[in-house]
């Protein structure tokens, strides 16, 4: 009886399954894997182009600040930095999975950093990485940088010099370039801990002659200009890598590879950013340890926005939509469309998970804008703040499970695109 039933089952499956698949396919037009990966590259190109454009605006604002240093030009530069973070944070979803981005990223957005490498700090409230011999090198104050037995000539502060000082002495905390180095130069150390308030650098730190505060203003100005120039150069390079109609860039390589591998990279990027990086490194560590040292945009207290736009980046890729800084929208075939065509109910469930994340991230932003910044939320006794961050973490964990489920529906079993040895 058992054998007979099993045989009938098998026959039924053979007859019934193709019929049901065909019926579903007729209901929802499933995009091809190739089209989805192609649109992924389109979003990357648009997103990096926006990041470049806002970085160029930041560079102009910094040039204004260095020409006419005053509180107003400093405020304008800070505002430009905050605007530049909006598209950039969304691009972080391209980092994991695309080795070319991950290898390039260290010079652009490395974090956390030992800021004593760059400029003066309050030594009593400065905690640096254990064993980092460059943690107090202070490039701005010193024309000769001594690390261990090596001496580096830092007389002329150029983009090339700063790039060469990254990971000085082998420590990842030695970050001389990128968004966070510029953030530190604009805001200064946040000495408020888990209390209200961000860094309070004064415009006089960039003034010439006797008006200069904290010494070496000329070198501080040179540093800020070199760092912003390098940021623009780096983003220009990344835009080129994703530009269409080129035969020698990364986009061409990605689209020439199998579409399944492209999808795998997309999934790996979404899952790694959502769980290990955003929910884990950037939120859970800071929350559980009540540690402001582990806050992402710690000098400017812009962490809530950085996290929000990280999550937005994941949303963009899953749903194939990206809103550009000029307000226009890039839309096209997506993972969500494909899952919907294959399993509409599962697609609905996953969409709910993404919406929950968006809503929990919105709560984080709303609270921060009402005066409770991320570093205040993580204070040991702030139950309300803990709940807000805890909900955001939980929603990202659930969303990651949704991403895994989507991969399964599409037939992507191995989620890691780099079988060689993922040093992501």
């Amino acid at each position, binding site marked *: 009886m058992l054998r007979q*039933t099993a045989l009938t*089952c098998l026959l*039924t499956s053979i007859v019934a399954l193709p019929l049901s698949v065909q019926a579903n396919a007729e209901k929802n037009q499933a995009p091809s894997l190739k089209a989805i990966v192609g649109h992924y590259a389109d979003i990357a190109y648009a997103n990096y182009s926006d990041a470049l454009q806002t970085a160029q605006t930041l560079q102009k604002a910094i040039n204004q600040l260095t020409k006419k240093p005053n509180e107003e030009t400093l405020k304008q530069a800070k505002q430009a930095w905050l605007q530049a973070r909006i598209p950039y944070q969304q691009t972080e979803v391209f980092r*994991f999975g695309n080795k070319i981005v991950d290898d390039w990223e260290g010079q652009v957005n490395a974090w956390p950093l030992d800021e004593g490498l760059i400029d003066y700090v309050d030594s009593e409230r400065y905690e640096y990485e254990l064993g980092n011999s460059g943690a107090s090198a202070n490039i701005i104050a010193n024309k000769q940088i001594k690390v261990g037995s090596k001496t580096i000539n830092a007389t002329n502060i150029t983009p090339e010099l700063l790039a060469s000082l990254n990971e000085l002495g*082998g420590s990842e905390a030695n970050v001389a370039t990128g968004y966070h180095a510029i953030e530190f130069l604009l805001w200064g150390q946040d000495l408020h801990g888990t209390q209200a308030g961000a860094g309070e650098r004064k415009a006089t730190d960039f003034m010439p002659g006797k008006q200069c505060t904290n010494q070496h203003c000329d070198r501080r100005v040179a540093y800020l200009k070199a760092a912003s120039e390098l940021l623009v150069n780096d983003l220009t390079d990344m835009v080129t890598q994703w530009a269409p109609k080129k035969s020698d860039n990364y986009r061409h390589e990605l689209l020439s590879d199998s579409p399944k591998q492209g999808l795998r990279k997309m999934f790996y990027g979404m899952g790694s950013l959502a769980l290990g990086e955003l929910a884990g490194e950037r939120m859970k560590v800071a929350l559980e340890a009540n540690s402001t040292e582990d806050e992402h945009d710690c000098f400017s207290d812009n962490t809530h926005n950085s996290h929000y736009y990280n999550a937005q980046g994941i949303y963009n890729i899953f749903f194939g939509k990206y809103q550009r800084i000029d307000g226009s929208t890039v839309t096209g075939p997506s993972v969500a469309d494909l899952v919907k065509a294959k399993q509409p109910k599962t697609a609905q469930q996953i969409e709910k998970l993404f919406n929950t994340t968006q809503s929990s991230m919105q709560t984080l932003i709303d609270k921060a804008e009402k005066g409770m910044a991320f570093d205040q939320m993580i204070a040991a006794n702030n139950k309300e703040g803990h709940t807000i961050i805890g909900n955001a973490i939980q929603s990202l964990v659930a969303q990651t499970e949704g991403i895994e489920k989507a991969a399964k529906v599409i037939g992507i079993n191995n989620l*890691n695109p780099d079988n060689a040895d993922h040093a*992501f």
Partner: protein
Amino acid sequence: MKKTPINHFRHLYKRCLLVCCILVTSPVFASLDNLIKHVDTTYTNLTTQVERLHQSSQQLCKTTSPNQQPANLTATQQAWRNAMNAWVKADLINFGLVVDENIAWRFQFWPDKKNLVKRKVEQFLQQHSDTITDQQLTNASVIVQGLSAAEYLLFDSKTSSIVNNKQRCQLLVAISSVLVQNSHYLQKHWNTQPLDVKNQHDYLTLVSNALASYLEKTYKKWSLAVLKQNPYFAESWRSQHSTVNIQQSLVAADTWYQQLIEPYLQDTKAKKAFAKSISTSFQQNITQFKQLPASLFSMLQTIKQHEKNSAKELLQKTTQQFRQLKKQITVYLPKTLDVSIGFNANDGD
């Protein structure tokens, strides 16, 4: 109900599912039972070791006789090492209650690149100068609650000794008491919520993901210090117990593999050969770690100061061998078992 063709199909599908369930799920009960026993034993051992640490800490802090103090400190340091060995083994159970309620960090905080353990412990001591209670500790940062903070109190050579220091002693006793509570809690409740395992595939997905994630984490613990050549990135640099931690982790991973996964690699010649290659890799790695000098911290300091090539080569060989094992477990084993490895906390930076 009228027997229309559609209803007939539905009926057959239901029977089909039932049969499939019976056929597929029966052997999994035995495996699941093994898994449950394994987890029970691991948590029981953890509880035993942290209870011993707690008793030893109480003894150390009661002692007033100067003659007894060095011996009691040594005994408590040894109890800490034993508790750490038990914890690194329990850390393989990276699913269920310990994850849902975020309990792992209450046992150990790692990595600690910016010396947060020292900062948070000293801050806590400043804020609680009178008495220290378990309640105060459980409300504080996870960093001050676990074995990492206990290690700082027991082994840090640059701060005042715990011997004869009533306040530091109180904190150590409270830490070990909270560790006992957390361990008891895990032991008693980890299985309250049944595991979501309906068939063999679910079972293999669970145990393979746990092992893959654990091996990735253990490799990260090793490579962070070794590849960066930073002695302070070694997992337990204050107690110089880092190499033993890795060795114990490999033993735990090997046991997990032998008991819970290897039986599923016996149905073809190719699978058997693959199973054997994993066992060989585990043994080679365990032997290699046993042969290393006891202190990774000292080794890395020596390399940094004197560019000692022999030590460098030894660490390179160890790392390479370890990386191969990790690849077998995280890439080839899931492929052979036809399971998918999901995202985990090791992804990202």
